């Protein structure tokens, strides 16, 4: 999305009777509305958009149009490099220190940063095996499974219903996140809360890896219905690749039968042992501190990031 915004900046030209700040902000807002119509924004996207709008608003009036566009372009570039790509590198470095020889790790769904951690740890020669837990209807775990096996990591694949069966073998659980709220609640793919809860019941530490730009000052108590996203209900009634499972064919229009396909859920902070971010490894209670520090950075005029 940010790269698309970079294209917007490059192609932009200020209309004569308006200033760059206001007009471009209005344009960006209209593009964002279009994106929202396609699919609700994730929280990290919301943060990125606020960053871009903030940068546009901070542009000094004295700059010429081409200078302003170049400055915006480089700001977005820096955001991508430091907050997204750079952050992942820092998180991976922190997280691999937590993986020891003989560990049995568990991960849920398919998170890019978790995949990077596991691959890096394997390259460093650590001996471990991974349980990849998957769930319907997206079955994203299969993608992660394929990539991990190609890299030579020993994996075991299972469905989320079986986590009570395997959890007593697991030493650590690594989870990715879509966002972390100010009260330490982790907002992530639906099913993450179940995994964290069962891990907690079996006394297995849960480590969540999340870049700082995904943090949000929102606070949420309810685990499901507030600000969630609904997926396609037909994805539940139809089971791909299993022609024998067609009990619900022909019933999708029945008034008595509904399908609920949640995309996200919220994991309470007491199930989480530690959150690994590009700001370091912190307990869930330190999240509001990071959110505050992060926002302070945005208010700074200079482009240097002070950690």
């Amino acid at each position, binding site marked *: 999305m940010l790269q698309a915004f970079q294209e917007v900046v490059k192609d932009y030209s200020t209309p004569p009777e308006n200033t760059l700040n206001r007009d471009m902000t209005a344009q960006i807002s209209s593009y964002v509305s279009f994106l929202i119509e396609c699919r609700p924004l994730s929280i990290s996207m919301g943060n990125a958009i606020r960053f871009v709008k903030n940068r546009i608003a901070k542009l000094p009036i004295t700059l010429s149009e081409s200078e302003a566009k170049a400055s915006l372009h480089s700001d977005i570039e820096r955001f991508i490099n430091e907050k997204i790509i750079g952050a992942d590198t820092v998180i991976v470095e922190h997280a691999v220190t937590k993986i020891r020889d003989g560990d049995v790790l568990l991960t849920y769904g398919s998170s890019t940063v978790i995949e990077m951690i596991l691959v890096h740890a394997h390259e460093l020669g650590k001996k471990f095996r991974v349980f990849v837990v998957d769930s319907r209807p997206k079955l994203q775990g299969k993608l992660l499974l394929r990539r991990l096996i190609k890299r030579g990591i020993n994996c075991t694949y299972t469905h989320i*219903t079986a986590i009570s*069966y395997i959890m007593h073998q697991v030493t650590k659980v690594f989870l990715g996140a879509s966002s972390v709220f100010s009260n330490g609640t982790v907002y992530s793919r639906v099913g993450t809360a179940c995994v964290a*809860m*069962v891990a907690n019941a079996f006394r297995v530490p849960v480590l969540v890896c999340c870049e700082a730009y995904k943090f949000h000052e929102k606070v949420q108590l309810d685990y499901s219905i507030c600000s969630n996203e609904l997926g396609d209900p037909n994805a539940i009634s139809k089971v791909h690749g299993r022609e024998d499972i067609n009990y619900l064919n022909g019933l999708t229009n029945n008034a008595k*039968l509904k399908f609920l396909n949640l995309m996200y859920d919220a994991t309470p902070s007491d199930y989480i042992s530690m959150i690994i971010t590009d700001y370091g490894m912190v307990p869930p209670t330190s999240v509001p501190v990071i959110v505050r520090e992060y926002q302070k950075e945005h208010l700074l005029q200079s482009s240097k990031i002070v950690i």
Partner: protein
Amino acid sequence: GTPESATVPYTSSSGADSESKTADKSSLTRKLKHDVIEGVNQLIQEIAGCHEQIAEQAIEHIHQNEVILTLGSSRTVLEFLCAAKEKKRSFRVFVAEGAPRYQGHLLAKELVARGLQTTVITDSAVFAMISRVNMVIIGAHAVMANGGVIGPVGVNMAALAAQKHAVPFVVLAGSHKLCPLYPHNPEVLLNELRSPSELLDFGEFSDCLDFGAGSGSLQVVNPTFDYVPPNLVSLFITDTGGHNPSYMYRLIADYYSADDLVM
């Protein structure tokens, strides 16, 4: 002389006439057969009748405008919910689909056919939905001597979530499901692993499993059952009424002979 019959140990007479001994043996065998057949018939009747007796108690537990969560596909649960509906209680049911067997789909189909408002959710959404639910009702595959429950895979997850939100976790079980064994390592010893093809198609991953090129190994775990410890169960409803998990061992003593019990 006549050889002592080793299969009838309680006959101590050794000098009896061979004819009367044979007559004795056949009448004893007949009586034994009769008793066994009667016992089996009784068991069959109990198994057939337990659904009704359990369903009678539904009206006490399900109230108006409740939301019930269930997992898997149990005939006892189906009859229980329908009995409550017969008595004009209106309530909603959330059914977790129970992949990879998708028993939840079967149950949802039955419930809709009987006219109950049903919503099918994925197993991963159980924790998310538990705060919206008044009661969790499941059917047990077996009830252990300590009050623990063997149920369809995924019930332990639901039980833990229910405990966290103080939602009652009700288990329906006919008395024929009681088992005198104590679960020492229930996840492994009392479980059954099903074919991995239910999770991954055979041959689906054959292109990346090339050991020569240094790929990792792939295992698939597909258990059928889950164990729920007794402290997570709020109530057992059997054909003899509602009971605490701590009371179940007494029912086992009623049901099994003392020779079979290892307490």
